[in-house]
C-alpha cells in the first residue's frame, strides 16, 4: 500500500450498482474500488450479494443501475467471454476446466483469439505455441513444473486451480476475481495458492478475493470491502481493521468478541480414552475430557482426528484400548445405538454425505436418532414432531426451519444447526464434533461458537476436531494435537499458539514443548 495507489484512479470501480430479481433486491447500491497491484478482499455472509456482484462484473447479469469502470473506461461486458477479452477474468469456486483436455489446451481456451477469422476454430491448433503459452503463464505463477501435456483430470485440485488462474493470465487479465479459491484445498495447498496470489499482486494485477476465511484474508489482502444485504457497509485498508470489526460489519451487529469468554473450572471426567487404537487410525489416543470443557483436537488432514472421533462413536472399530463414559467402560462391541443411549453424540464432518439426509425434512433429520419421545409406542405423533422441532429450531434460531421443509434447501449454517440440534435432542452429554463450522458462513460460525459455549456451561463435555487453528485457540479450553495417529497431551489453550500447534502437528509432541506447560 502506497499513497500513490490511493491517489491514482482505481483500476476497477463500481458505484451504486443495483440489481433485483423479481421482487428480490440482490444488490442495493454497491461501491467497490480496486487499485492496480492490490488484493482486495470482498467479504460478506452467504446471500450478501458477492456472487451477484461478480456476475454483474463479468457480464453474466446486467445491473439495473450504477456505474462500472475498468481502467477509467466505462465497463459493460456482454458476457464472461467479452469480460475476459476486456481484461477481467474469473476463477470460479466450482472449477470450470475441461477435464479431458490437457493443461495447455485448457489454458489456450482462455487466450486471445489468434488469426483465422470465424473459421479459426476449424484450423489445426498450434500445439507448440499452446505449450509455450502454458509454460510461460505457469512459470509466472511460480509453478513451471506442471506438465502442459498432462490431462487436467489427472491433476490435484490445487494444480487445477493453478491452471485456471493460468488461463486468466493467458487472457492478459488485469483484474482477476477469485471466488473462494481455497475452499477445496488442504492447508498446504492453500498456503501455496496464497503465495501465488501475492505474486500476481506484485506483478501489478488487481485481484478481487472472495473468501469466508478471515485469517486467509488477513494474510493476503491489502484492502477490504464488506457487503451486507446487497450494500457496501464499509471498506478500508486491512492493516487498519480488527477481525472483530470485519465480523461485526458482516453480520450487522456488535460482538463482544468472535469467541465467547473462556469457561471456569471443569467438572468430573466424562470421557476417558486410554490407549485407544483403531484399525489403522488412530494409533494411540489417550485423553480425558471433563464436563463443562471444550477440548480441541488439532492435527493435519489425515492425521487421524476424524478417525478417533468415529471410533469413539462406534462408527469405526477399535482394536485395543479402553473408552470410559462417566467412569464406566464402553465395550468394544457396543453398537452405535447403545453408545448414543449412554450419552455420546457425534457430528460428522461430511454434512452433505453423511451428517444429514438431504432429501428428508428438517423434522426427520432432527429427530431421527431418537424417535422414541415423538413416537410413543412406535406411532409417530405429528403434534409431538412439530413441537420438538419447533423447540430446537427456536433454541438454535434456525431460520426457515419449518419442520416439513426439505433440509437440503436450507443454507449450510442452518443445516449444521439442525445437525447439532439432533445431538441435543438425543440428549448427548459428550459431544464429539468433527469440523463443526466447516463450510458455513461467519455469522453462523459465531452462533455455533456461542452455542457450544452454552452447552459446555450446561455441563456437557465437548470435543471439537478441526483444522482451523485460530478457531480451536479461541474456542477451546484445552487442545491436543494428533500427529500420525498418535494423540499428544492436551494443553491449556492459553499456553498454545498457532505456531506451537502447527509445529506439533507437523513434528509430533516431543518437539513442541519449549516452555509449553503440560496440563493433562
Amino acid at each position, binding site marked *: 500500500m502506497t499513497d500513490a495507489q490511493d491517489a491514482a484512479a482505481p483500476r476497477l470501480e463500481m458505484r451504486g450498482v443495483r440489481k433485483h430479481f423479481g421482487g428480490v433486491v440482490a444488490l442495493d447500491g454497491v461501491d467497490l474500488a480496486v487499485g492496480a497491484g492490490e488484493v482486495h478482499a470482498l467479504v460478506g455472509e452467504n446471500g450478501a450479494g458477492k456472487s451477484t456482484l461478480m456476475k454483474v462484473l463479468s457480464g453474466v447479469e446486467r445491473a439495473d443501475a450504477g456505474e462500472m469502470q475498468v481502467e477509467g473506461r466505462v465497463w459493460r461486458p456482454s458476457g464472461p467471454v467479452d469480460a475476459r477479452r476486456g481484461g477481467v477474468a474469473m476463477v470460479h469456486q466450482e472449477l470450470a476446466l475441461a477435464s479431458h483436455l490437457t493443461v495447455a489446451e485448457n489454458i489456450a481456451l482462455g487466450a486471445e483469439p489468434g488469426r483465422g477469422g470465424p473459421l479459426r476454430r476449424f484450423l489445426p491448433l498450434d500445439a507448440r505455441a499452446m505449450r509455450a503459452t502454458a509454460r510461460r503463464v505457469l512459470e509466472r505463477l511460480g509453478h513451471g513444473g506442471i506438465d502442459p501435456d498432462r490431462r487436467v483430470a489427472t491433476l490435484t485440485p490445487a494444480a487445477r486451480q493453478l491452471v485456471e488462474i493460468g488461463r486468466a493470465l493467458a487472457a492478459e487479465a488485469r483484474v482477476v476475481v477469485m471466488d473462494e479459491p481455497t475452499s477445496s484445498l488442504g492447508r498446504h495447498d492453500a498456503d501455496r495458492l496464497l503465495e501465488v496470489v501475492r505474486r500476481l499482486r506484485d506483478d501489478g494485477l488487481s485481484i478481487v478475493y472472495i473468501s469466508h476465511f478471515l485469517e486467509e484474508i488477513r494474510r493476503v489482502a491489502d484492502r477490504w470491502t464488506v457487503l451486507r444485504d446487497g450494500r457496501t457497509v464499509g471498506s478500508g485498508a486491512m492493516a487498519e481493521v480488527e477481525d472483530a470489526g470485519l465480523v461485526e460489519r458482516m453480520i450487522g451487529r456488535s460482538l463482544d468478541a468472535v469467541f465467547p469468554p473462556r469457561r471456569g473450572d471443569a467438572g468430573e471426567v466424562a470421557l476417558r480414552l486410554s490407549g485407544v487404537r483403531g484399525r489403522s487410525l488412530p494409533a494411540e489416543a489417550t485423553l480425558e475430557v471433563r464436563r463443562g470443557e471444550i477440548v480441541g483436537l488439532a492435527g493435519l488432514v489425515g492425521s487421524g482426528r476424524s478417525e478417533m472421533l468415529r471410533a469413539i462413536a462406534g462408527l469405526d472399530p477399535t482394536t485395543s484400548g479402553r473408552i470410559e463414559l462417566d467412569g464406566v467402560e464402553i465395550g468394544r462391541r457396543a453398537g452405535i445405538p447403545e453408545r448414543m443411549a449412554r450419552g455420546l453424540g457425534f457430528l460428522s464432518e461430511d454434512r452433505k454425505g*453423511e451428517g444429514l439426509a438431504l432429501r428428508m425434512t428438517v423434522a426427520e433429520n432432527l429427530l431421527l436418532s431418537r424417535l422414541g419421545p415423538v413416537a410413543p409406542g412406535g406411532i409417530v405423533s405429528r403434534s409431538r414432531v412439530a413441537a420438538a422441532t419447533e423447540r430446537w429450531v427456536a433454541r438454535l434460531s434456525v431460520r426457515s426451519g419449518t419442520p416439513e421443509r426439505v433440509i437440503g434447501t436450507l443454507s449450510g449454517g442452518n443445516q449444521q444447526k439442525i445437525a447439532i440440534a439432533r445431538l441435543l435432542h438425543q440428549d448427548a452429554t459428550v459431544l464429539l464434533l468433527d469440523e463443526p463450522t466447516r463450510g458455513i458462513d461467519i455469522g453462523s460460525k459465531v452462533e455455533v461458537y456461542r452455542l457450544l459455549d452454552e452447552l459446555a456451561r450446561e455441563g456437557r463435555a465437548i470435543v471439537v476436531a478441526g483444522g482451523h487453528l485460530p478457531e480451536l485457540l479461541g474456542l477451546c479450553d484445552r487442545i491436543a494435537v494428533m500427529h500420525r495417529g498418535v494423540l499428544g497431551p492436551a494443553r491449556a489453550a492459553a499456553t498454545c499458539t498457532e505456531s506451537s500447534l502447527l509445529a506439533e502437528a507437523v513434528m509430533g509432541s516431543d518437539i513442541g514443548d519449549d516452555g509449553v506447560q503440560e496440563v493433562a
Partner: protein
Amino acid sequence: MTSAATTGIEGSESGLDREHWVRRLARLAAPFIGLVIVVGVFTAMEPEAFLSIRNGRTIAIQTVVVGIGAIGMCFVIVSGGIDLSIGSVIALAGVAGAMALDAGTSPTVAVLVAAGTGVACGLVNGGLVTGLRIPPFIVTLGMLGIARGLAKLLADNQRIAPPAESLGWLEGFVDKTPDLAWLLVAPAVWCLLLAAILAGLVLRRTAFGVQVVAIGSSESTARLCGVPVVRTKILVYALCGLGAGLAGAVTLGRLGVGDPTTAVGLELSIIAAVVIGGASLSGGEGGILGTMIGAFMLSSLDAGCNLAGIDNSVQDIIIGGIIVVAVMIDGLRRRG
C-alpha cells in the same frame, strides 16, 4: 411452558400441513393421471364391456396379486433396494401351498406354508444383501433363478393339483363373485385394501417407517443416527417375501393348482406399480397409496387389453415403456 409449547404446535401446523400436502399431492398426480388415461382409453374403445360390473370385479381381483406384492416391494424400494425375485417367489410359494394341500393340510395351514416360504426367501435376500454386502440387484436376481428352479424341482416340472375340495375357504376368498353379495368384490380385495391402509400407516406414521425412509434416503446418515440398518433391511426384505407368499396363496386359490411357471415377469408389473406410484428407484421416496393406484392402473391395462384383444406381448412393451417414463419423470422432478 405448556402454553408456549401449544402455540408452537399451532403456529407451525398450517405451514407444516401445506408443504406436506403439496408434496404428497404432487407425487400422487402422475399415477392418478395415468389411471384416468388408461380407463378413458379403454372406455372409449370398449364402452360397454370395460365399465361393466363383471369387468370391474375382474380388475379388482387381478389387482390383488400385484397389489400385495407391490406393498412389500414399496418398502424395499423406499429403503433403497429392489427385489427382482418376487415373481419367482410367488410361484414357489404357490407350489409350496399346493403341496401342503396335497398332503392333506387345511387351507389355513397351506396359506401359512405359502407365506412362510415367501418370508424365508425374503430373509435370505435380506441376509445376503446386508451380511455379504452384495447389491440387492444381484442377490435378488440370483433368487429369481433359485426360487423358480426350486419351484419347478419341487413340482417335478408339472402343476401340482390338490383335490378340488381341499381348497376350502381359499377358493371363496378369491372368487370374483363372493357368496356374500354385500361384499361386492372378492374378500381378498377387501383384505388387500386393509393391508394397504395398514402398510401406509406403518410407512408414514411409525418410527419403523421413518427409519426405512431414512435408510433409503441416506444409509450413512441412518447409521450415524443409530438406526439399526441391518435389522431394518432384513425386515423389509422379509416383509416383501411375506407379500410374495400371500400373493402366491391367492394365485393358488384362483388357479386351483400350484403352477411353477406362473407369475413369470410379474416382478416387472410389481416394480412398475411402485414406481408409477411415485417411488424413486434411488430410494427414500414412495408411498402405498400411489402404489395401489399404480397396481390398479396396471390391472386395468391388463383387463382392457384382454377385452380389446390386444396381445400380451404388446402389454409387456407398454408396461416396460411406462417404467422408463416413470423413472424419467422421477429424474426430472429431482432435477427441477
